[in-house]
């Protein structure tokens, strides 16, 4: 690492940051390199996904420690910054106990702790004014969270009342479309409206997605400002007991007009095809309940009961027509009815955010590149450009990675002049880590830029 004082940080140099010589990382005993997976026992695939042994191998060889550290360090210098040292880590262990307020002075210390504890889950918390480990040494009031990425958590369980293809922890490509819409809508709003640039979408490993916004401005937001952003984005309101959950004003805010366009692209496939919203009486009753007019409800109900197999897209036209004629017959109903179809579209496709996670600076969120204990899949980043193609069943599991590594090594016997690759580079994890590296690099570029500006400013004096 020689980027430092000269202030000219070209892309090339940033590129180099990711292929720093890692020999010190892997000099330690590397059972993986010597022992083929089979020698671990029967085979790696027989081990439970969250077996500590498997996780140990994962943390030692597949976890992208370098870019991970660079991310949390928020600095182009490899020296640990306060941002890294004062960050709260929380580990969930295999017996499900969790240890909060952990913090580390160096990357190595963190790495060793990972290898020692093999946590089933790593959560990231806020950056505090002092090291979280020293928390008990000060008055509670003197332990203050000062910054954290703005984060979002979208979980499929919040869609259970409108989702019919799966329930609970299951997901399939049909219901995953909810997540795709969510990513598209939230991503563009955060970039265009709020001006954030460094967004990392991450698969939560099972049935949801997370978003980390690493811009300095986002990290500095206070709770009130976070709340404002969330409520700006939020459209679905009300608990289980409330039928109509969306009531938007006649004129849509420009941000919502844009969302409405995106919704339009997905509503037919979600509502007509994958979720049977208008094919099953139980489901269409929920839609009818949203319409604040008994007459319209009754006429649609009788029509659809007569021909329940009528094409869902036709039924949707019926609904719009029925509302249109109700307004024509009694113009004073316009205010109450006109935008009901639009609001139904929002209710059935607009993202549902877990508000608490975003609005509280010290809330924990599962770190990227954890391994989900139930599915065994790695929580990999999802590139926004190709988010429509993401399949929640595609991210690798540890046994899969082990197998890929074996196959790679069998095909490429070690040779002197080949560059030494890290384990993840030989597997399908590579593509995922590269998405992550792009995110980190973008942040570091901003940091370098800022340093440069500051130093040129100080030269002016």
């Amino acid at each position, binding site marked *: 690492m020689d980027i430092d004082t000269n202030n000219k940080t070209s892309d090339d140099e940033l590129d180099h940051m990711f292929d720093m010589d890692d020999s010190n990382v892997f000099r330690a005993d590397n059972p993986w390199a010597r022992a083929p997976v089979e020698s671990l026992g029967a085979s790696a695939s027989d081990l439970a996904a969250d077996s500590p042994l498997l996780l140990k191998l994962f943390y030692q060889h597949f976890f992208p420690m370098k870019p991970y550290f660079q991310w949390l360090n928020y600095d182009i210098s490899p020296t640990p910054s306060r941002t890294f040292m004062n960050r709260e880590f929380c580990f969930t262990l295999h017996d499900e106990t969790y240890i909060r307020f952990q913090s580390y002075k160096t990357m190595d210390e963190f790495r060793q702790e990972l290898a020692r504890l093999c946590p089933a889950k790593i959560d990231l918390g806020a950056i505090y004014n002092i090291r979280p480990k020293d928390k008990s040494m000060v008055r509670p009031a003197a332990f203050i969270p000062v910054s954290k990425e703005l984060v979002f958590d979208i979980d499929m369980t919040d869609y259970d009342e409108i989702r019919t293809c799966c329930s609970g922890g299951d997901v399939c490509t049909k219901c995953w479309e909810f997540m795709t819409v969510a990513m598209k809508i939230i991503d563009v709003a955060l970039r265009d409206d709020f001006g954030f640039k460094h967004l990392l979408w991450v698969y939560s490993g099972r049935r949801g997605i997370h978003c980390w916004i690493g811009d300095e401005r986002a990290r500095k937001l206070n709770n009130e400002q976070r709340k404002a952003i969330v409520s700006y984005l939020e459209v*679905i309101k009300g608990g289980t007991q409330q039928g109509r959950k969306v009531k938007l004003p006649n004129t849509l805010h420009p941000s919502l007009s844009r969302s409405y366009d995106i919704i339009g692209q997905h509503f037919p496939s979600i509502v007509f095809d994958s979720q049977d919203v208008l094919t099953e009486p139980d489901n269409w009753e929920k839609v009818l309940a949203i319409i604040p007019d008994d007459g319209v409800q009754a006429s649609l109900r009788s029509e659809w009961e007569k021909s329940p197999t009528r094409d869902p897209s036709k039924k949707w036209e019926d609904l719009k027509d029925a509302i249109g004629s109700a307004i024509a017959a009694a113009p004073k109903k316009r205010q109450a009815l006109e935008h009901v179809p639009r609001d139904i579209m929002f209710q059935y496709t607009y993202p549902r955010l877990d508000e608490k996670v975003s609005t509280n600076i010290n809330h924990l969120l599962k770190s990227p590149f954890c391994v989900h204990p139930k599915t065994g899949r790695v929580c990999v980043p999802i590139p926004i450009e190709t988010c429509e193609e993401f399949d929640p069943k595609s991210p690798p599991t540890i046994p899969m990675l082990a197998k890929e590594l074996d196959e790679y090594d069998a095909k490429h016997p070690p040779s002197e002049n080949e560059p030494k690759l890290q384990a993840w580079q030989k597997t399908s994890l590579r593509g995922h880590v590269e998405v992550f590296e792009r995110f980190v690099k973008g942040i570091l570029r901003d940091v370098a830029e800022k340093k440069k500006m500051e130093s040129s400013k100080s030269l002016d004096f």
Partner: protein
Amino acid sequence: MFTQERTQTRKTRQMLASGARFTYDDEPYPTRLNFYRDPPALEISIEEFEQFALDRMQVLTALQTAQMRNLPPDQMDKAVGDAIRNQELRQWFLRAECALFRYRFEKESLKEQLEFLEKQNLTWKKVSDDDKRLLKDKLKASSPFKAQNVDDETFFEVDFERVCGLVGKRQVYIHAGKAFVPLADQVVLVLDEFRERLAQALEVTGRALPRMDEDNRLMPVLNNINKQYLGREFTTSAVAGEIQAQDVDALKIHMPLCMEHLHDELRREKHTKHGGRMQYGLFLKGIGLSLEQALIFWQTAFANKSPDEFNKQYAYNVRHSYGMEGKRTDYTPYSCKSIIMGSAPGVGDHHGCPFRHFSAPNLRAKLAAHQVDEFDTEDILGLVGAKHYQIACTRYYEVTRARMIGGSPDTLRGGSGSALASGQGAGSEFRVASQEQIEHPNQFFEQSYKLMQQHKSTAAGGAGANGDQDMEAAPLDPTVKGRYTYRKVGGPSSIVNHDMEM
């Protein structure tokens, strides 16, 4: 006050004041609009201070609750600001002061507003006419009521962080991190500036009076103000005595709809999300469920969790809410206001107030399940429609309790000549039950519970002399303002922080 430190303090203040980029005004408070550029320099006695503080708080509280009516004289501006040392109180004070400032600002004529702004050197970047033309449709769609005529309206471009209120309500156009605020909303900008300066001024004065925390003459005063104006608190009063986990089901009949709903859903789903656990858990604590019993109650309720899972995931939270973990705040049950105004239930949540958070059909169904007849149902829904949720709840109380003891709702309104009112204690108790609006779910429970006890003892034929005496120890003490305050048992008053972090 602080006579022994008088000169010292004044010096420190001026030093700090100038050091903190406040300029000193020759004419400290020239208009009624006061931006707190400088801490007030006058000295007051403890007694004066208490009087000022209380008066000021009264103004602010009245302002908050009475939705900005006529303002009382505002001689007190100068005295209070510099005394707020306590963190939470300071936050509250800040919010309230901002509301007051806003009110005053909006009352001033446009001319005075502009004069004031000029004087304060408040300048924001204006959006150019070209940009305005380019963004016309978007600006119009963003504030449809305020800025219809985009061409004539002036827009300012500021960081979105400065106008959180507008952002949160989606009432301003934002692009690339900048908010485009119409002149019509400038009060928001002024307010933001005001808040920032006041916060800094408080900070500075806070530091200028470093020993106030320890000043034993002042702390009781502050605590007192704190108690009187930060709302009523409710702590275990346990009319029903110490409750066992297995008693809870039987006590359901005395619960208000919000708690009954949480209870039913807990039994049905064998689980409750965080918001529900807090709302219901603290309520149960309030009716006399000990920590030990609470742990039993929740563990049995979460029947699908193994004892091990329960201990790891939930026991901490239960202990926490009893003040046995973490910050050791002894959490108090939520009042109706905080339930109604608090975070609305999201998908899968069951907390909240049914009168506020249920759709009309669902509320109707709930009422029907409690045999509320059509007439009363319409009455209640009418109140809900007018946003009088607590009055609706009070009405629900009257209707259902009357049936419970076999009378008419009027009996509960203190009607004379009723058979029920014949017992001495009963008569007065019924009046308490009726005139008071439901302010707190625990109040609902207690009233209902005691009503039932009384009814039983009067029905048993005057044999309840002992019981009556017990019951006369009303849990509700009227305060000077004629409101009810709930006695706090033990511990210093604490401002509840509902955020449990996990």
